[in-house]
């Protein structure tokens, strides 16, 4: 299991309880389609793409995604989320080669 660079951004930075905020999740991933050829060896590069992403907020799955290879390299997933108390937002993602990773941030509403 390799460690991938990923990032969860919440906009606006300061938010209150009950507010609807924008959440974007970015991950550094090659998203190889399996159709591309290596220019030197003329061999097909094997497919490697994210096939599932799950947003989990305080133990409740709020968004699930089925993903195919047509997404760009280093994909971004942006949705909205309703703040419902302090806690943890974790994003679990897996790819077609069986690699599973998780990224999480703390949710701290003010006021």
């Amino acid at each position, binding site marked *: 299991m390799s460690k991938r660079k990923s990032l969860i951004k919440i906009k606006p930075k300061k938010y209150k309880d009950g507010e609807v905020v924008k959440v974007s999740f970015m991950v550094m991933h090659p998203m190889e*389609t399996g159709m591309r050829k290596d220019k030197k060896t003329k061999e097909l590069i094997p497919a490697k793409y994210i096939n599932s992403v799950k947003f989990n907020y305080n133990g*409740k799955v709020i*968004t699930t995604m089925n993903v195919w*290879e*047509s997404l760009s390299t280093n994909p971004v*997933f942006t*949705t909205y*989320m*309703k703040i419902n108390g302090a806690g943890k937002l974790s994003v679990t993602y897996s790819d077609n080669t069986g690699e599973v990773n998780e990224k999480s941030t703390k949710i701290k509403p003010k006021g």
Partner: protein
Amino acid sequence: MLFQQNKDKQMQRREFFKQLGAVATIAAISPTISFAEEAKKQKGLNNLSYKAAVDAITGGKGAVESSKVSLKVPEIAENGAVVPVTVEVESPMTEGDYVKAIHILAAKNGNPRCIDVHLTPANGKAMFATRIKLGESQDVVTVVALSDGTFLTASQNVKVTIGGCG
């Protein structure tokens, strides 16, 4: 006279066999042609044709074009490898009435399905944005599934100057 009849019969039999042969060869060739086409389609991983993908999402019901769905894609994409797509749906997002899923499809890509997003009322707002790859100039389509079982759709043509595959 009798000889003549025999000869006639023989001729009929020959004709019959000729026809039979012709039919047999056609029957033998045609499935191989269709198999070859199917093999071509299934060359990529888990590829469905665009129509089959839409049918798989809507269950053959078909989707209705609606102004409630707004799809934001650049009309001209300089680089097909990174095309930003934003889908927004007007919906109250309550327990009774919310957007179940947003599907994004690229009609002419090898695998037309890009992403399925399953939303819940906890999202608060029905919006999804991502970046996709486009191999050539084509339509980008979104199919939105509502909680009452209806499907809405919106599409836009995108011109790609540099393809994003290969």
